[in-house]
């Protein structure tokens, strides 16, 4: 995970999100619904976005990337510049999703962004700024 290896001993049935937050202290990954409906807990497994709250840790095979592994990604700076965070509780999940999106599609259109990000809820309604941040992520 994030370029490191960790050994954890948890009961079968433990979610990836719980391991990240409670066992490894990586609280950048947020849990807002714990049932796969909001996207706050998004991480990547081999570059593909996954909802860590409904992913059982024992089923994961591959390299996990969390927001802690993406702190130097240009998207972080572009989110800040665009004011794409209000309360910020959804923001790490948004950035992890967006990073997966721009890895596949480095110059996404507005439609691609709306499609790729529709699973990440933001109750504060920062969506217009998120769209700007992703459109201009390399500027």
């Amino acid at each position, binding site marked *: 995970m994030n370029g490191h290896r960790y050994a954890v001993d948890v009961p079968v049935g433990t979610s990836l999100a719980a391991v990240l*937050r409670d066992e490894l202290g990586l609280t*950048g990954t*947020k849990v807002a619904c714990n049932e796969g*409906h909001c996207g706050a807990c998004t991480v990547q497994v081999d570059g593909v976005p996954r909802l860590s709250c409904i992913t059982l840790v024992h089923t994961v095979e591959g390299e996990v990337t969390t927001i*802690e592994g993406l702190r130097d990604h240009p998207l*972080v700076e572009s989110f*800040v510049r665009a*004011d794409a965070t209000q*309360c910020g509780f959804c923001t790490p999940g948004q950035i992890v999703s967006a990073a997966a999106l721009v890895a596949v599609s480095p110059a996404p259109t507005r439609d691609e962004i709306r499609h790729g990000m529709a699973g990440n809820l933001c*109750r504060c309604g920062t969506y217009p700024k998120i769209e700007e941040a992703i459109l201009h992520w390399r500027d």
Partner: protein
Amino acid sequence: MADAPQRARGEAQYTADVLLPGMLHAALLRSPHAYARVKKIDVRRALEAPGVHAAVGPEDVEALTDEPGFFGAPVAAIAANTVEQARAALELIDVEWEPLEPLLDPDEAVRRGQLTDEPRRNERGDFERALADADVVVEGEYRTQVVLHNPLETHQSVCRWEGDTLEIYTSTQYIWGIRSRVAKQLGVEPDNVRVVCNYMGGGFGAKNDPGEYTYVAAELARRTGRPVKCALTRREENLAAGNRNATIQRLTVGARSDGTITALGGEFVNAVGWDGWIAPTDGPMQTLYHCENVRTVTYGAKINTAPMKAFRAPGYVEGTFGLECLLDELAARLDVDPLELRRKNYAHSSNERPYSSKNLMECYRRAEPHWERRHELRTRSDSTWKYGAGLASQIWYGGGGPPSYAWTRVGSDGRITVITAMQDIGTGTRTAMAQIAAEELGVPLDRVRVELGDSARGPFASISAGSSTTPSMGPAVRAAAADAKRQIIEIAAQRHHLEERVLDISDGNVVSADGNLSSPLEEIVGLLENAQILGKGARGPNPTGMQVLTFGVQVAEVAVDVETGEVRVLRVAAIHDVGRVINPLGASSQVEGGIIQGIGHTLSEQRLLDPATGTVLTQSLDAYRLPTIADVPEIVCELIDKPDEHLTNLGSKGLGEPPIVPIAAAIANAIRDATGADIHSLPITREEMLRALEAAKQKQRGAPAAV
């Protein structure tokens, strides 16, 4: 934003992230009935379950009840090593319930006199007489639904006792309110309660009070001697963490044929729930237009549903929907332009006290180019998709007020720290406070840090509600910065043998008016070595005898598929008058956020109950439909950036709430422009849209409208 990098990088510590050594987790037993009596409760079996440390019931904590009045009311709680263990043990609590007949219909509650409070009656002039004399009278019944705040961080607290001092980490909009409420409830000194909230994941009005989760965590922590976290699940959040109550509004307007409004009347039923207060659904009717004869009565129906809480402009969101739709129906009846009708009935002066400032006419003027677009827009209609535009006005509070205090600390390195024990609910408070201090002190923004979020580490600060954070706190910060600046200039004057009045600070340098002196701030303050300059500031009073209000207008453009009932909002132009704008980028974010929440309220969000039992059916974020990025229209935000001359040293009003106020009516009016259908009920689901289209068809044929 000053703290945006921490949030974006996942470094900001929310209450959800607080992990104290030895911390236990609490889970709450909630009522499975909308109304019931707990005849017997026995926690002994639960106490023996693995990992369980303690249990509390109605006799131990006042916030727990043995007569639950709504589905999901908290009855008992358990603390265990893990949250899974606590939840599993809930199943082992033996409860004997006596289910009672729930009352769920607000009109029926009013008929039975089952009210939360005395009805609120307001009358000026002679409504009946004016109505009898009117050339036209339009009546309508409007309904708004229950919507849920759903902040992404659920309500939660972590409590820890250190001797006789209680530490509370909590997701709150009001650090000092939690401190005094909890102190009072537990019978401890307020100074023995420390409340910490560094970052919080949204509140929108639902996090002003301590809540059962705080009291339960405090009591379980006391009993176990360990820190206890009590965090609501998303489903609990959707049951019992507050809501915008439903309303029924029976409205009447009388006017002369030239469009002058002569009579306004409203009967409002607020479906308050088991507890709560009567939000000002009548407010817009009382205040938005000039009208001499106004009569309103507002009932608070006490029914077996979860208590309402403030939700972003409570009452005014609902009341503006009714009133502004009614006004467009009047405009259609009279065949006058809706914008003209609003100008014609402009309230130049208030019925009570004068306005501290009002630039709504300027908002209307700036709305014109957006409003003009409707002609072109309508031509896009074909047999399936109909296009149209609608507008609605906004009035709301937002002046903030005293008391609030701030300190500024200037170190010998010339760096400035602003300290105040307020919370930031995600509205860019740290940025705005840093900007205000930097401007007043004449230093670059990156020299200023803001420390907040801890009642033990800063002075009293106001609640973050009623769009009051910046207008309440900003003036205190500004005064504290001015106090520090005065002291710095005093030192510079002594050092350089100059008069204080010729000195100023600009761009981080102490400068003299003749230009002979330009000395970096750190050189002047550096003379103090380890000593520091401390500035103190307090929020001054609001202008006496004046009303501080915010105003605005929004123009919405929609497309309606008349075959499926799908409504798409294409564009919203929002023009608001909120006094001086401190942070334009952050302000536009607040406007967008309010509009997007409002679109959810208008089109998709609705808490649904089983009408027979009062069980909540929409508990997950799958069932309860929040707007996503795909639902967002083009949003154009224009702010009338004129400082309110009467308002403190800052001239700023609040902006968190105004943008959500007019959006529902603007969309509904756009729909009627596009299709001719009157919208009387929120949310405008496809089903509701098709019903309204059918009713319009019937009306056209002269048949009685289907209900």
